[in-house]
């Protein structure tokens, strides 16, 4: 691949806020877990919901919180939105998700190739590691790459689909900071709110 192609691909990167908003449009019964940093802000900016659980730490854990949730709630579609930096810290977790194989779980990686929260250092993904191919090698039966608006509908359909999974959805987003949109940070509140949404009484 020549430089021309990479440059073109770079230009094609999506606006993260617009992409997440589009992916969560008409989300219906979707339960959402978000990884620390910008994925939490993006999902919150797309519209707060009692069916959202935002992580503010526990790096590497978002997709696995999604796994536990998907297994406990097999009748609901579950999506974990995270970044390339976090998912790189939890590569083993992709193997655990693949072998557990919940059909109702999607791991959505907002991939800008950078550690966006810490000054924009280039991540492994930005240095050539292809997370979609990693997920494929781990055994994810559905791997989608979203690098244009034309792919949003297919990604939404994949997240809603309960017949095959887990799904790995890589969203090629542009690097660069967005205005901070901060969801609640009180984890106990977020937990209780989420469980109440599923009908579990506050104790």
């Amino acid at each position, binding site marked *: 691949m020549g430089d021309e192609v990479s440059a073109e691909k770079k230009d094609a990167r999506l606006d993260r806020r617009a992409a997440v908003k589009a992916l969560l449009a008409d989300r219906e019964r979707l339960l959402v*877990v978000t990884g620390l940093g910008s994925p939490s802000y993006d999902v919150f900016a797309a519209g707060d919901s009692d069916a959202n*659980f935002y*992580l*503010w*730490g*526990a*790096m*590497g*854990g*978002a997709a*696995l*919180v*999604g*796994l*536990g*949730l*998907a*297994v*406990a*709630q097999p009748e609901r579609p579950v999506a974990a939105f995270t970044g390339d930096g976090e998912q790189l810290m*939890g590569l*083993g*977790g992709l*193997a*655990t998700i693949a*072998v*557990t194989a919940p059909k109702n779980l999607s791991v959505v990686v907002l991939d800008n190739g950078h550690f966006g929260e810490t000054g924009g250092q280039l991540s492994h993904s930005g240095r050539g590691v292809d997370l979609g191919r990693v997920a494929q090698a781990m055994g994810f039966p559905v791997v989608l790459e979203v690098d244009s608006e034309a792919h949003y509908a297919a990604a939404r359909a994949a997240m809603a689909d309960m017949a095959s999974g887990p799904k790995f959805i890589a969203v090629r987003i542009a690097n660069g900071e967005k205005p901070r949109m901060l969801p609640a940070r009180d*984890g*106990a509140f*977020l*937990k209780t709110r*989420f*469980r109440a949404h*599923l009908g*579990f009484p506050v*104790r």
Partner: protein
Amino acid sequence: METGLATSHNRASEDPADQASPWARIIYEGLIEADIKHVTYVPDAGHGRLIDLLDSTPTIRMTVLTTEEEGIAIGAGAWLGGERSALLMQSSGVGNCVNMLSLLESCRLPFLTIVTMRGEWAEFNPWQIPMGRAVPQAFEAMRVRTIRVERLDELADALSAAATLAFDDDQAVALILSQRLLGRKKWVTK
């Protein structure tokens, strides 16, 4: 093989498979009684019998992990979804968990882990000693309560108390099975 609840906590099992690690069936029955639906684990030879028992129980979903900290995140998700889980690990795995344990205090989540100790009693592998020695401090640093079990006859009660603290009080609890309880022989023969 029957893996139900026929065996009482206070009576030794007749099953020859239980002779080598009699504690395994006690833990198994305690987990069933505590309504645990998900068990996550990084295998440990010491947990072998327990893992076999759990594997043959259709009401329990077993998830093998690549590293112990995954079990904390999975357990958090399971609880969000309304179900109880437990994490099985060896003492060497405790150090792998440290940052992920933040989830528990930050979200006031229940957490139950069962830790088989290495590096503290008739240990043949010196590499097990540093992390084995640091287990209580690592848990304490992350505000996980530890309940240490030295004797078989206190195990059922300790597990029941740990599960109650975890799931009725939203506490993070580690049940520590001492290496002496687990027995020295299997470490050198397996």
